[in-house]
């Protein structure tokens, strides 16, 4: 029996538009389990990114509950959410969003410094290890603008996991990358998941979806399907591709 680390109940998200309301999420119920690599898929405008940000507390739901550690994210104060972001959650964005005037090492280390659970020396040591793990230690003093998109995204992943988050959120992390870099980033995420990292990723890339252990399909603001998969292994990529493809077809993707 898997342990749920985050659950959403009756989640709604609406935006005011031209005097009316646009409902992006409508009564979404979902649970994220420890150790899972959960992927949210759906057509453009289906509400997948909105769901990700509502579940992560980056954005507040209009109604419903998002429970994490026994507390509702929707009612948490800004400061409590800020603390959560450097203690329990990690984020990876499609556009990397590294701080342009910090070196790669500093981009990784700053959230570690912010989280005062570790000493500066421990944070530095952990950042060095992550740089090594991500294969970017040779360019650690470079600025984001001086490295490739793939290297930036690997740095963003290292930044997201510097504080050993309970849950890693990734919004189309390969959306801005070429094929080679996409594979490298997905390999890193898969490796992290294998080491026990829970991940929730939004993607519309089939290759990225293959790395999941669980896929949620969203359409018109509602989760309409769920597919559970065994942990990813390169050997069975082809059969996995067929299985996921067929399932997505059934979802009218």
């Amino acid at each position: 029996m898997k342990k749920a680390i985050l659950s959403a109940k009756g989640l709604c998200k609406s935006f005011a538009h031209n005097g009316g309301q646009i409902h992006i999420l409508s009564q979404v119920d979902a649970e994220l389990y420890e150790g899972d690599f959960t992927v949210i898929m759906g057509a453009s405008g289906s509400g997948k990114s909105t769901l990700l940000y509502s579940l992560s507390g980056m954005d507040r739901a209009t109604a419903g509950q998002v429970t994490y550690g026994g507390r509702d994210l929707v009612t948490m104060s800004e400061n409590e959410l800020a603390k959560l972001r450097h203690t329990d959650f990690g984020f990876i964005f499609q556009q990397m969003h590294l701080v342009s005037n910090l070196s790669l090492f500093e981009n990784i280390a700053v959230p570690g410094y912010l989280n005062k659970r570790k000493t500066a020396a421990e944070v530095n040591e952990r950042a060095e290890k992550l740089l090594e793990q991500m294969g970017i230690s040779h360019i650690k003093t470079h600025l984001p603008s001086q490295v490739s998109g793939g290297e930036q995204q690997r740095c963003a992943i290292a930044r997201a996991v510097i504080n050993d988050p309970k849950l890693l959120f990734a919004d189309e992390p390969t959306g801005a990358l070429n094929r080679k870099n996409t594979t490298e980033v997905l390999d890193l995420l898969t490796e992290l998941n294998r080491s026990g990292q829970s991940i929730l990723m939004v993607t519309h890339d089939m290759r990225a979806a293959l790395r999941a252990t669980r896929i949620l399909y969203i359409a018109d603001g509602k989760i309409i399907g769920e597919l559970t998969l065994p942990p990813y292994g390169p050997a069975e990529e082809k059969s996995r591709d067929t299985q996921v493809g067929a399932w997505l077809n059934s979802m009218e993707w």
Partner: protein
Amino acid sequence: MEILTLLKANILHKKGSFMSVILLMAIVTLSFSVTVSNNDNISDGIERSFSAADTGDFAVFINESDVDEELTEKLTADENVGRVRSDEAIACLSYTVNDTEGKSPYLLMKWENNYPVYDDRLKNFNDFPKELSDGEAYVPAALKTVYGCEKGSEIVINTKNGKEKFTVSGFIEEPFLGSMSIGIKDIFITEKDYARLYSESVDAESSPLRLMLPTSIIHIFRNENSTLSVNELKKELNRRYELIDKAMFTMSRENSENITTLFTDTGTKLLAVYVILLIVIIMIAINHSISSTIETEYVSLGILKAQGFTKGKIRLIYALQYFFGLITGSVIGLVLSVPLTNILGKVFQPITGIMTATDISVGKCMLISLGIIVVCTVYIFFATKKISRISPVRAISGGAEEVHFDSMINIPIRQKPLPFFIAMRQITSDMKSYIGTSLIAALLVFFMITITLLADGATANTMIEAFGAFNGQVNAKLNGSTDKSMQDEIAASVKAIDKDASVTFSETAYLTIDDNELCCTVYNDPAILKSLLKGRAPLYENEIMITELAAEEIGKKMGDTVTVGGSKGSSEYVISGIYQSVQDMGKCFAMSFDAASVIGEISPSAIYITLSDDALADKVVTELSDNYGDILEAKATEKSGYAESMTDMIDTLMNVVTGVIYSVSAAFALVTVHMVCTKVFLRERKDVGIYKAIGFTSSGLRLQFAVRFLIVAAVGSAAGMVLALLFSDDILSLLLKNIGISFFSVSCTVSSVIAPFALICVCFFVLAFFASHKVRRVAVRELITE
């Protein structure tokens, strides 16, 4: 039409920058408009008052016995003289007002309704002033400020027959001697009282007690067709009729006006320098605003170019946008200057003694505004040069290239204190943006420290000595002439009480030096003066020392020989040293009694005693009063009367100028910090989102923002502090030269330097914290790419 549409859109969407420019220009316009208008009002008031009082181009104050009909006829007939008129007066030595001893001699004159009388509140003239009764007096309005004199106050005049009491019946506007800056004053009494005192109380010239001497004030009006200047006319009349040699002193309208406006002029000069600094600050702020706008709106500007807008048109839109801001600001500044000019006029009225209008010098101020606007607009046109480098292709494909920074000061980020290290990185990675802000802080602190040092120095006791006056504990007035043996006896009696005491005998007289009439202070030992700048004090009978300004006036320098003329004749003297003094606006010279005896009979009229122990002052006063009470009046004092009144005036001026400069600096810091912060925030909006996404709180980010501006302000303020320490002496000397201070040495205290530094740093920190309130509105959601 397209220009108007974009201009309107720019103003509407960049209200912050537009408003900031309006505010900055309004503050600048307000500052110069108030000072220029106030100065003009004072000058106009003085001119009006001079005309009403029928004051000559210069007046000769001369013993009545030295004036005869022949001299008057000769003067009237001189081709360079238009006309001559004389006033009768009794020159008096000693008086008290409200039990306060008069600081300078004064003139008793007949009241002939020759000056306007103020109403009780000194706000208007009384159209029907009360007829003066016997025992009553009208006095210049400055007596109210100097002695706290009120209507009904008692003025006690010391005569050889005892004390005469007069009750102050009102205050008059007297432009010639009425200013607070001029020591000698005139007191107007009834014709009957005047005649009585003249017949009963005046002293004979030969009398050792010369408390009251009949005097003539000859007003000489230059012939309009004469080619001589007033100074040349004085020299010429002296050459022909020995007029100046015979006179006690002379004063021209120009001299009187210069002394009356001494402090307002100095204040104006200080503010003028400050306004120039403010204009530089406006240009720095505008430059920062333009650079940031070009950076943040690179795409929009590129699109405009792609649509066919030329770089010239876009630059014109920017120039017009700021031009309208500057115009609006100057109009607001002019309007706001109306009430403030009124207030400033009231501040200076007790100093000048002149009732001034509260008009705004609209034409002059508009011209200055226009000059500033033109300079700023031209500068803006140059500052927008970067627009020509915007590439439409790059703009359409995503905007300006990412900025690569290669900082020379690459301080690594450390955990504690994280906000400081991140702030440092933000500064060092975008140094160019912060140089301007730092420069603004530097300029503000530089001027604030300079003005604080001036204010501190101006009120310190050391200033009295530095400006050629005495800072002794006991002063005494001699009521008659004393010979050398008497002087030695007095000095010995003081030294018997305090062997380290210094006893200085002094007299002031107007003597000619190379035919220029200048004030000469005679001392028993000129070396006692602590304001020597170059050379040495006169040691021998043929030596004098002179102030820098007087040397300039007569075209001589140290080591040169000059001819000094007195009542007994003239002799050649060598200039042995240059010193500074506030006496007669710094145009004076000094010599020893031995040297003065060669050309005239000059006897000391004052004694300045400096003791090694303040506690001995009363003992010395008692000793002198008991043993020499018949020839002198001694009193314990902290400052000499002259220096005291000067310090009072400087205090008033300094309080006004310091207050204005501190307030304007704070207002400028407020507007510029807000303007810069808003632009920086716009540029860094994405970074704010990223920092929030990794767990920074809004308040933490705001603190970081404020720390950044604190660092920028601290660096700038430190530079301003260094600049002030290096150059404030020179700048103040330059500004104060017109009041006789050719060298102003500042003595820095920790507070005078730290207070402006701290004020600007705190202002920047607090204002940046408030200006960054928009950080709260940045949502992490903005980082999402849908």
